[in-house]
């Protein structure tokens, strides 16, 4: 957690400077977190930036992209089909690394169900 500034009074308890990771533009965002939990976002150039900053201040999420080794030894690229809690990244990696799917595999096939609320899916066809 960087760019944290704790202020007193006026209902404002925390101010954070963020870099939006939703798209390659990478807008610089400022988020003011009120003591009632409300998050005020500035600097975003699209609505997704606002959602990102709100989540980042309350429950940061990340999509994992990695690989699994198939039974025949081939390396299959996979991803979580939605973001998972950021603090679960390494636990999720341990679960994903245990997978050993059997070919053939089609893009979007579910390799592991429900890893912290997200399915791990194939991102490449492997005949």
């Amino acid at each position, binding site marked *: 957690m960087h760019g944290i500034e704790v202020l007193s009074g006026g209902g404002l308890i925390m101010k954070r400077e*963020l*870099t939006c*990771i*939703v*798209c*390659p533009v990478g807008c610089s965002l400022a988020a003011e977190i009120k003591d009632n939990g409300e998050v005020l976002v500035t600097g975003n150039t699209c609505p997704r930036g606002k959602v990102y900053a709100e989540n980042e201040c309350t429950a940061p999420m990340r999509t994992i992209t990695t690989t699994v080794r198939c039974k025949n030894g081939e390396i299959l690229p996979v*991803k979580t089909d939605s973001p998972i809690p950021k603090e679960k990244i*390494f636990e999720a*990696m341990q679960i994903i690394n245990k997978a050993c799917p059997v070919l053939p595999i089609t893009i979007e096939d579910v390799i592991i169900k429900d890893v912290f609320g997200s399915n791990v899916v194939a991102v490449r066809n492997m005949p």
Partner: protein
Amino acid sequence: MKELVIVGGGPAGMSAAIKAYEEGIRDILILERDSSLGGILQQCIHNGFGLHRFGEELTGPEYAWRYEKQVRDLGIAYKLNTMVLDITEDKVITATNIEDGIFQIEAKAIILAMGCRERAKGALNIAGTRPAGIYSAGTAQKLVNLEGYMPGKKVVILGSGDIGLIMARRMTLEGAKVECVCELMPFSGGLARNIEQCLNDFNIPLKLSHTVVEIHGKERLSGVTIAKVDENRKPILGTEEFIECDTLLLSVGLIPENELSKKASVCIDRFTNGAVVDQNRHTSCDGIFACGNVLHVHDLVDFVSEEAEIAAMGAVNYINNTDKERVSIDIKTDGKIRYTVPQRITEKKDVTVYFRVSNVFNNVKICVSDGENIVFSKKKTKVTPGEMEKITLKGNSFEKCTELKFYLEEA
């Protein structure tokens, strides 16, 4: 004789082929060196591709598949595991593969889409020994993502280009400890989002104005000495620091892969390291076009696909004899603007010019002059070498001139 031969089946080649097909060309052949279409995207398993073109965030293999599926559905011919050995000025291609041996194809038009290569260690001149454990970031990416091998356990990364940042995260996820990323320049060449999600998420330090000054180790890399550099990028005595590591990844820039283009005597721009082209991506060789990272290194694959469609339209008009040269305007730059693509304009119609600056500049005015008058200007709060800029010039704004000068005015 083929109407259109495309050299390279990566994002540029596939996008060009699809566009040419859509515009009525049927006699198309893609030549690809690798065992599958998709090019470098197949090893770029991270997400962030396709936001501009598809409005969603895809991984590299998924982005590649969107195009490969179209190539297959349209029945566009391609040859895999096929290495192009030579291209001549009169558009004869010599290639080889295991089924056909060495063969020649004559083409009405050629689109060059060979992509780029990483700058290698040899180009850096780092002092010290030459042990195992030093890889380009892209090689490490291939080892981890395609072959399933980890290059090492304790890693230092030199250069903060996007591939280096992406590999810092990837190696960390797979259990390695990334000690730091050193960047010679006072700013990163990578995207802000990658510094955030690949370094900050994992508390990996980014050491700006730092470089590796010595490599240690006999058989295997045992460590590197890093040092701070001054404003002239020279190491500052007394700032040296030894970092123990078994792996050094180099992410120090990409160079368009133009060996074949040079064989065809295509004129190369010394700033882009790619061909000099007009607005249709037509090179100095009649009927030879270029697009994607072989022309100039792009920030996003989305822009590669877009440029490939421009080149495809150029090639289609050339094949159909509908392209007419009307004007000859050279685009010059002032050094602060390092290069433009295209470098010349041959038609009096609206043209989008892409360019890159040589340094970070704040509060600038991007100006275009025809020698007498400013024909275009636009203010920007910030421009950086890491982000390609573009402007669109109206066809009637450069009617009479023979040269357009692109320059930056600082406030």
